[in-house]
């Protein structure tokens, strides 16, 4: 992504007109796996339309953090408020949040027994109770957006990794979510397929979608992120605008990480 290095100023972000409340608010959140303290005192506020890249060494808790936002993982203390709804053990609230928050996984997690089109229309039909014809129309629109409308009637197993990930993005977008979470979307891809997925994500970012991406693609971070968050050992160590983050890292751990990831 080195050819598109124009950093977007945070002030350019079009704020959602309907509400000024933050998209995501995390207050003093902690999570343990058994006795292991994975996330420690996380405080994070994400404005509407903000694009955030979360970086950090493996095991730093960055995936766990975004998986807490749609409660694929449960947090033990503190608050997570997504789009005005607090995540508790109330299943209704969880389902409501999940239908507003799209998620893209490292391993795509497409449904192999359904066609690409069925993958995309499933949730609109069953969760949004949309008529089938309308859902298909919507799905085709998003498949065109990710540039694979011609694959609509194939099964995921017939597509390449990059195509599958783009279908996964389209599948999430079909729910017309307000927030998109990306959990290392390019880590399982061959190098020549990373670009097509990143291009799709960049286009999505340009539409003003609130995005949280866990990724190692620093080029992507520089190109589209409003803020880069660096995590280590379950804590947010540093956060800054991309230009400051890459050119002027403050924390020792960040400097070491950047030197390792950009050094070669």
């Amino acid at each position, binding site marked *: 992504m080195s050819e598109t290095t124009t950093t977007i100023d945070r002030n350019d972000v079009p704020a959602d007109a309907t509400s000024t409340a933050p998209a995501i608010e995390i207050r003093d959140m902690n999570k343990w796996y058994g006795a292991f303290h994975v996330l420690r005192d996380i405080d994070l506020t994400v404005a509407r339309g903000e694009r955030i890249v979360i970086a950090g060494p493996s095991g730093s808790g960055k995936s766990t953090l975004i998986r807490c936002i749609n409660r694929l993982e449960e947090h033990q203390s503190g608050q997570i408020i997504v789009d005005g709804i607090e995540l508790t053990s109330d299943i209704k609230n969880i389902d409501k949040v999940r239908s507003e928050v*799209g*998620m893209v*996984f490292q*391993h795509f997690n497409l*449904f*192999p*027994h359904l066609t690409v089109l069925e993958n995309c229309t499933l949730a609109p039909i069953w*969760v949004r109770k949309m008529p089938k014809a309308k859902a298909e129309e919507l799905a085709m629109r998003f498949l065109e957006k990710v540039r694979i409308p011609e694959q609509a009637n194939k099964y995921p197993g017939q597509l390449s990794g990059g195509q599958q990930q783009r279908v996964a993005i389209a599948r999430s977008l079909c729910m017309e979510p307000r927030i998109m979470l990306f959990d290392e979307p390019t880590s399982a891809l061959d190098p020549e397929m990373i670009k097509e997925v990143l291009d799709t994500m960049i286009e999505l970012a340009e539409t003003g979608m609130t995005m949280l991406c866990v990724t190692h693609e620093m080029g992507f971070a520089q190109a589209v992120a409003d803020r880069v968050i660096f995590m280590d050992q379950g804590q947010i160590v540093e956060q800054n605008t991309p230009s400051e983050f890459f050119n002027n890292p403050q924390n020792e751990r960040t400097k070491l990480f950047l030197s390792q990831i950009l050094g070669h």
Partner: protein
Amino acid sequence: MSVTDTTVPTAYVRTEMLPPRAAPMQRKGALGWLRENLFSNWFNTVLTVLGIAIIWWFVSHFWPWFAHSVWSAGSLRECREIIAATWGEGASGACFAVIRERWHQYLFGFYPRAEYWRPVMTIGLMFIALAPVLFSVSATIRRRVLAGGGLLTMILMAICGVPLWSAMLMLALFGVALLLAEYAPGRLLWFTVFYPVLGVWLLWGGSLWSPMMVLAGLAAGFVVARLLAKRAPGLAPFAAIITIAIWWAFISQPLADALAGVLPLSLLHVTSREFGGFLLAIVIGVSGITMSLPLGIVLALARRSDMPLIKTFAVMFIEFIRGVPLISLLFVASTLLNYFMPPGTNFDIILRVIIMVTIFAAAYMAEVIRGGLAALPKGQYEAADSLGLDYWQAQRLIILPQALKISIPGIVGTFIGMFKDTTLVGLIGLYEPLKGISDFVRADFNWKGIYWEPFVFVGVIFFVICFSMSRYSMYLERRLSRENR
């Protein structure tokens, strides 16, 4: 230096590709096949020769027995006399005359002969009920199954000498089913729902309204659940169950009697004790199969549930049922269960057996399906969750279709095992075909001492039914794997 740099002189560049050449003789043709598969080295050659010798030894022993078989005789003694007269003293031969004489008991037990059209029709209608479920995708195969089922039914009807009107009715029904399958296969599913009532009525007779009211109770429960689903979703299932119980306990019988008074649709009542042979095996097997699959799915999901109470119950149920032999459950069904019933209740013996066989098969089914559920990657659950699907939607649309597909061989294996286990009901005094009917036949002085022929006959029919199930499972696996590639 770049690979595409054409200015650099290269030593060798292939411009034309070599065309494929024909394979050498030993790689193709019958000779090639023999060489590769049977005589590829001295060890395989020895094995091949040994195999042929064993096959020859078996065939040469059994062939005369089949070749000398007698198909028409009045008794075993008569059979032996005919064989001795034709093939010489000491020659062995099968006496299939017993099948010719007693085939009806092997098929229907002691079902009244004049009413044979009823079980045959029930079996024929079963094909119509199964076609839209088992072959929902392919119209060609549905057509073939319906036509084949129709042909089989007609042949059975001809053999049984049923009244002409019933054969005509059956033919007309198959015609309608074929048309429906062609133009509105969805409608055929309504018949599938209605089939159990029709089947029970045809087989046991009595008033049509009694089984109808049982179905109506289920429908009433469903309606209550639907009505309450919006207002009190948590309450709906319980309300439905209570409605069904009240309906069955208090409304069913009086309403059935009242309706019978208005429109007496009634057949000669046949008691469960008169059932026998393959009719009994198929009634128990088919009911057990259709009920154990849904029950098994529910148990498998319950065992994987996060809710400790439900999970504990499922584990206890499955482990208890799997831990005891089927025979002991059947004994419970035949004797013990009556102690728990209010005195005077007549709880049908076949129904009791079906319940026991169902829960026995369901416990095994649950474990087979649990294996399929466990084989699914966690990502599938997460993807379903992240899209906002609720638990039942995720299970029905995402998890179960994939888990059941993985479990098909195990599920059908359980079905086949269960169908063969129906012969165990002989031990509680029901006349299953393998031993019950054969013992009854041998009790006749004429057929005293006949062993192998009934076994061969019954074995062949069991094999045909079980083999078709196994072929169906292969067809399903092939179809589903093609869908996903």
